[in-house]
């Protein structure tokens, strides 16, 4: 097991290196220079040249690349060209905002998606099945922009149940410790603020959950349908087991592996930030952080944030792979 994990971690190195290289080359291929954008429209060519020299952008690309790489190996993610802050310091508040939202969304997606999928498979071809699957289709194809604004209109403006945008009640701001506001409010015993933070999570959480929810529901259904046809299920039923336990215990356990894979992939995607959801709900997450960085051609921020996200993505996949063995003892790691 440990040697397996070790091997997987070693395999990560070329993957991440390759990715750093591709991103590095790609962002330099887009027109527009950071110096021009930092200095504004009134900048003189001399000022731009001086700025390029200062940022090291006048050096050949391989010098720049190996300098950046050397920094990464020493745990230095570089410094933002725009704000002059270390990327490592800047990235965490944004990442934390995204993590909080992504976890909330994936929990919603799992609870609703898996149950909808199971029930659809259980009562295959029933009205529930049809409706759930049509909704799932709608879910994957729904434009988030529209859904988000509609949600704000209905739940925030018409019914005044939920806030439209943001992470917190700005008139009573959360004192950030970890930047994960649920944890911060709990640490400070501010249950009133915890309440507000939860309320702010609901609309963006649901908007973000729609697509994963639909994908999980469809995967659960198809995986369950396959298992439900197998012999041991018939045996269990013949023994007089209650249908509920047959479905949720015996069948689900064998159907869960592909579902887990999908959940892992979706979780990775959510943690990459969701620029549309973050924009509509004014969520200060990593997606907007990278988007802004691209607009400003803030090379170190783009490179390092994508590196961090890619790292998280592959780690989640590793965890999913390890979970397989935990669930199905037939799977061995060697």
């Amino acid at each position, binding site marked *: 097991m440990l040697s397996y994990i070790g091997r997987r971690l070693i395999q990560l190195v070329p993957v991440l290196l390759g990715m750093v290289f591709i991103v590095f080359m790609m962002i330099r291929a*887009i*027109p*527009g*220079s950071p110096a*021009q954008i*930092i*200095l*504004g*429209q*009134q*900048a*003189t*060519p*001399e*000022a731009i040249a*001086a*700025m390029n020299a*200062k940022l090291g952008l006048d050096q050949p690309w391989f010098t720049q690349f190996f300098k950046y790489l050397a920094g990464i190996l020493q745990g230095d993610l570089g410094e933002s060209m*725009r*704000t*002059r*802050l270390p990327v490592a310091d*800047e990235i965490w*508040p*944004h990442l934390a*905002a995204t993590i909080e939202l992504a976890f909330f969304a994936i929990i919603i997606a799992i*609870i609703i998606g898996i149950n909808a999928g199971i029930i659809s498979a259980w009562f295959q071809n029933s009205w529930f099945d049809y409706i759930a699957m049509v909704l799932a289709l709608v879910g994957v194809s729904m434009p988030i922009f529209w859904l*988000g*604004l509609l949600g*704000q*209109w209905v739940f*925030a*403006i018409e019914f*005044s*149940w*939920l*806030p*439209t*945008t*943001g*992470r917190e*009640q*700005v*008139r009573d*701001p959360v004192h*950030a410790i970890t930047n994960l506001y649920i944890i911060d409010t709990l640490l400070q015993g501010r249950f*009133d603020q915890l*309440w507000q933070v*939860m*309320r702010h999570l*609901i609309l963006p959480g649901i908007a973000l959950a729609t697509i994963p929810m639909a994908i999980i529901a469809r995967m659960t259904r198809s995986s369950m349908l396959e298992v439900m046809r197998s012999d041991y299920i018939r045996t269990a039923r013949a023994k007089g087991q209650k249908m509920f336990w047959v479905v949720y215990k015996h069948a689900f356990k064998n159907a869960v592996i592909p579902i887990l894979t999908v959940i892992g992939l979706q979780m990775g995607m959510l943690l990459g930030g969701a620029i549309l959801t973050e*924009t*509509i*709900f*004014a969520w*200060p997450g990593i997606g*907007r*952080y990278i988007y*802004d960085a691209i*607009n400003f051609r803030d090379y170190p921020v783009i490179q390092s944030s994508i590196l961090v996200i890619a790292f998280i993505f592959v780690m989640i996949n590793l965890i999913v792979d390890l979970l397989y063995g935990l669930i199905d003892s037939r799977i061995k790691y060697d």
Partner: protein
Amino acid sequence: MSKKRMWSVALILLLVLSTALAACGKGSSSSKEDTLVFGRGGDSKSLDPSRVTEGETFKVTVNLFETLLNFGEQDTSIQPGLAKEWNTDDGLTYTFKLREGVKFHDGTDFNADAVVANFERWANGDADKFPYYNSMFGGFKGDEGHVIESVTADGDYTVIIKLKRTQAPFLKNIAMSMFAIASPTAFEKGDDQFERNPVGTGPFEFVEWKPNDSITIKKFDGYWQKGLPKLNKIVFRSIPDNSARLNALIAGEIDLADGINPSDAEKIEGNADLQLIKRPSMNVGYLGLTVTRPPFDKKEVRQAMNHAIDKETIINSFFEGQANIAKNPMPPSISGYNDDIEPYEYNPQKAKELLAKAGYPDGFEMELWAMPVPRPYMPDGAKVAEVIQSNLADIGIKAKIVSYEWGTYLDKASKGEADAFMLGWTGDNGDADNFLYVLLDEDNIGSNNYTYFKNAKMHDLFIQAQTEVDENKRVELYKKAQEIIHEEAPWVPLAHSTPLLAATKDLKGFLPHPTGSDVLSNVEFK
């Protein structure tokens, strides 16, 4: 079994929680009367105004810092600021008498030494650190073009600024929000740390900055103007999407929103809880014609373009009437505007004749660049481009609409790669130089003169106007320059738009400033 029970308990808890959350009404909002929540499109880049060129920073810092001179409440006339009086005899030596008894937020005294320290800090910097200082005062200490000879203290409350040569917009430059006087004690601790811990003399002091989310400032108790500010706290919130920002305003989460879509104006006026606020216009949206690219090297073709485009339809359809038709490259509010200029009327027939005269009786093919991002001076680039396209088709010009991501768009346009491109400008200091010279002079080819237009006579007028201290003579020079621009027609000026804001009905005392940086010390809820 116990694991299963744990799960069911968790599930039930979640259900209960979600029901309870849904049942919860609007919730507790802490004392609204003294806190203003200002919703805007983007976050600030820095809180040190001298280090940036973007408006979102100035929106905040104009409330934290003060300048030696101020702009008028809703115009760009020169008013006393931290200096209560100023004078000059020859336009080379300026004497500023400072206000006494003013303190910075950190307790440091504001005096002549503090002002000198600020100018020293800028003059010893470089274009990377202080980009605006570079463009407004022609460089830094030791540079040939640097306008400022010396800044010295004469006693505690008099500052003397000597210039190497006269600079007509000098006082206006001094009033720009980027040249705010900061506490020397604070910036001596390091520029990078100062950017995130700004200390000025303004009505509000800095509290907290949550990147991409909110910036909070609170009332400064030691403010020199008694009775101000009226609010206790201001929170600037970044809500990037215009519709979501309006939703937040309607839901009562923010009290003031900028960047309102012209198409939402009617909805706001029809809402009894809201008010629509119009910012005085200081911008221009235009279609630039790159004069180095044939057939736009021919004056007749450029004039034909001016006659072919139906500006009125564009303004009525996409600015919802919240704009005026432009005939000059700068708005009428700016001193030096030439109102005698007869605009090119919308006349496709005349346009065709001009094309024929230029040797293109059957028109030609061209690329029309549509702005990919909304700006107050161009709320919907793609749709405006479609109108222009059909106008041009009427006179036989086949225009293909193209667009690029914004950074790419500006980069390619500045290299002269566009035939005709949409762009605009919002003034920084309300001076004609800031429009005409910056956007159309040969000195600015490669930076802001995207059309590559050159005219020796016009250039001479601009250079003369820059050092002319007599305002009447200056106005004449700019009027003449506008005649040349009109005749040569490197642009099709389209619109001077009115940027819109919206606020809750009970918000009083808010005066939007044409530069986009609003001082909020008089704002209150009633």
